[in-house]
């Protein structure tokens, strides 16, 4: 998951910088083979899938349908970590965006 995020950071510079954060909702309009918006959408979808899976685990835990407590905890930890990874990526992007906005021309 970390690998696909790294190369597009270089490619950010080409499109208008505000687009990437708005694009996931608007859909892929960029002619590039893998637009940055697609990457962000894909990463978000993966994180959301993991969060959903851990929610299903928690539901099983609440209804007593759990054969393995530590597996549930491990999956919870995994989804927490991927959420934090997503958060960190977002922080870096926002930081560089704000840096650009503050740039004096």
């Amino acid at each position: 998951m970390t690998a696909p995020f790294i190369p597009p950071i270089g490619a950010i510079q080409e499109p208008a910088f505000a687009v990437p954060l708005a694009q996931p909702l608007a859909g892929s309009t960029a002619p590039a083979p893998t637009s940055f918006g697609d990457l962000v959408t894909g990463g978000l979808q993966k994180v959301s899938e993991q969060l959903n899976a851990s929610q299903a685990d928690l539901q099983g835990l609440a209804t007593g349908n759990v054969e393995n407590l530590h597996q549930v905890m491990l999956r919870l930890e995994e989804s927490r970590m991927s959420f934090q990874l997503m958060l960190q990526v977002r922080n870096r992007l926002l930081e560089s965006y704000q840096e650009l906005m503050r740039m004096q021309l």
Partner: protein
Amino acid sequence: MNYSQSFAISATGMDVERLRVEVAALNLANANTVASADGKGFQPLRVIAQSALGGQSLDGGSFASLVGQGLAGPSSVVEPSGRPMRSVLDPGHPHADAQGYVTYPGVDPATEMMTMLVASRAYEANVVAMNIARGMAVKALDIGGAA
């Protein structure tokens, strides 16, 4: 993702130790069950865990690929421990044999206690290993962040 592999390794260890505790609990639960006169009764069980990794040495890459295929963790088998049955003189018992002896499974409570204690410590060790792997991953997310 790399850290989920080390999570999976710790999880296999936890699986084995949980199995050990379950088997010890089963032995204790059946410790005082009577065997029928023809000797059929509960047999104390024990867990034999074996590592898929033999004695061979591995370089980092082949170890990582083994871990990726889920082959690095231990596998476990539950088998009868073969301890001799325990005979107790109880002539009035409905299951007593001709000499008045009733047979019980050869469960040794002290051994089972030790098994559970060791398994619980090993489980804790696996949890600590997993937490350390998680801590390292969280630290890696801090790279370049505001200190």
